[in-house]
């Protein structure tokens, strides 16, 4: 209990180093989830409503990428952003944007694959009505995303959970630089390797508390909105 209390005391006291770590963690994870949502939801919804040769292969690939090992994603982004890589000139390696990129690679397949399944199920229900109303493809996608929004919130939360808990990818592309690219998960990994278990445990508790808080907020808002929309 003592390390947890100490960690929360540091947090409540506004310890700058700890706050910086928490803030960067949230910024990186939320940015990554935001970008992944913007990509994954339309891609997943379009995949649900279109039929083309090789669609099954694409679906299987997206499903498989949900289990993409973070270190592999990190390595891929590292190679892209390294000085000799194709995007090396951007100078992003070992910066927070690089960490966002790595997490986008991890989270986008999760959001796209789960969105595809959700929208496909909803389409089965709506198909006759929307076809009879002569609703065009773009509006169909929009309608299904809007009407599936409560399920999609859960999917985005799953993506946030994956991003917030992730360490392998961001430690490769971020470098765990104190005060610059150190997040809660990379700090936990570092402190554990240094043997400072109390601080690692304390950070872990804070991380879990944040994830629970974000989920609780989203769930409450979602339920209220769902009650209104039916």
């Amino acid at each position, binding site marked *: 209990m003592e390390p947890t209390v100490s960690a929360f005391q540091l947090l409540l006291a506004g310890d700058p180093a700890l706050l910086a770590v928490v803030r960067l963690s949230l910024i990186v994870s939320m940015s990554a989830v935001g970008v992944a949502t913007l990509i994954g939801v339309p891609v997943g919804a379009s995949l649900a409503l279109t039929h083309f040769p090789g669609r099954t292969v694409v679906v299987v690939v997206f499903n498989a990428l949900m289990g993409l090992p973070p270190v592999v994603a990190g390595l891929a982004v590292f190679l892209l952003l390294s000085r000799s890589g194709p995007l090396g000139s951007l100078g992003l390696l070992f910066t927070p944007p690089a960490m966002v990129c790595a997490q986008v690679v991890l989270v986008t397949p999760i959001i796209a694959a789960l969105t595809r399944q959700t929208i496909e199920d909803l389409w089965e229900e709506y198909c006759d009505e929307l076809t009879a109303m002569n609703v065009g493809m773009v509006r169909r996608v929009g309608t299904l995303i809007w*009407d599936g929004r409560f399920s999609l919130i859960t999917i985005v939360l799953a993506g946030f959970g994956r991003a917030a808990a992730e360490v392998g990818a961001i430690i490769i592309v971020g470098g765990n630089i104190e005060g610059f690219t150190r997040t809660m998960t990379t700090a936990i990994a570092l402190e554990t390797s240094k043997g400072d278990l109390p601080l690692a445990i304390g950070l872990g508790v804070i991380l879990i508390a944040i994830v629970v808080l974000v989920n609780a907020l989203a769930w409450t808002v979602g339920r209220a909105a769902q009650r209104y*929309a039916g």
Partner: protein
Amino acid sequence: MRAPGTELPICLSDVTVETHGVTILDRITLALGSGPPTVLIGPNGSGKTTLLRIAMGLILPSAGTVTWGGRESVAPVRRAIVFQHPVMLRRTAAENLRYALKVSGRLPRKMYDSRIAELLSLVGLSEFGDRPARTMSGGEKRRLALARALAGDPAVLFLDEPSASLDPAAAKVVEDVIRTVAARNIKVVMSTHDLGSARRLAGDIIFMHRGRVVETGAASTFFNEPHSDEAKIFIRGDLLV
């Protein structure tokens, strides 16, 4: 009064529908023109719903042709259908109607609110505009679906078993709306296996059995002087197998 547009007549020529080797409709040839409601009757499984879907353009025939106003490929802009189990969008009743108005694009946005109020009033749901549509009862949903179908200003309205599973009061409201719609020169084509409903609403009857049109004609003639044995059995209320 409106012109029925270019949707009519709807002509089916030798239309067959087969699914997984089963014949649902068997070489149907008929024409649906303007006039009083046409009612498809027949026992369950006779192909009424499939015929409505074919005429609406929701499914393609396995053989034969369907034309709307003489053309084979016409988007269902002036056709609307109310399914037996309508699916409501996850919005309020008024927002369901707003959605249909937006999709149809036939009305300026500034007129949406007044049109929504008019449609809700037509189906007796004026007080239900803010109610989440999916929490409404079966009868209310059916009436809202009717209003939604009318939002697109259709020339032809297909109704699949519009009063099935409704209590008498709700069925009466639906039948009143159908009469009002028909009086506005909208062609109503509906299916039912409720002979009472058919007697009250039909101008013309199409009697179906086992995927075939057995008998067609004016409702009064059909009910008073049916020609086929199947029609006689069905009108008598005996089981038609």
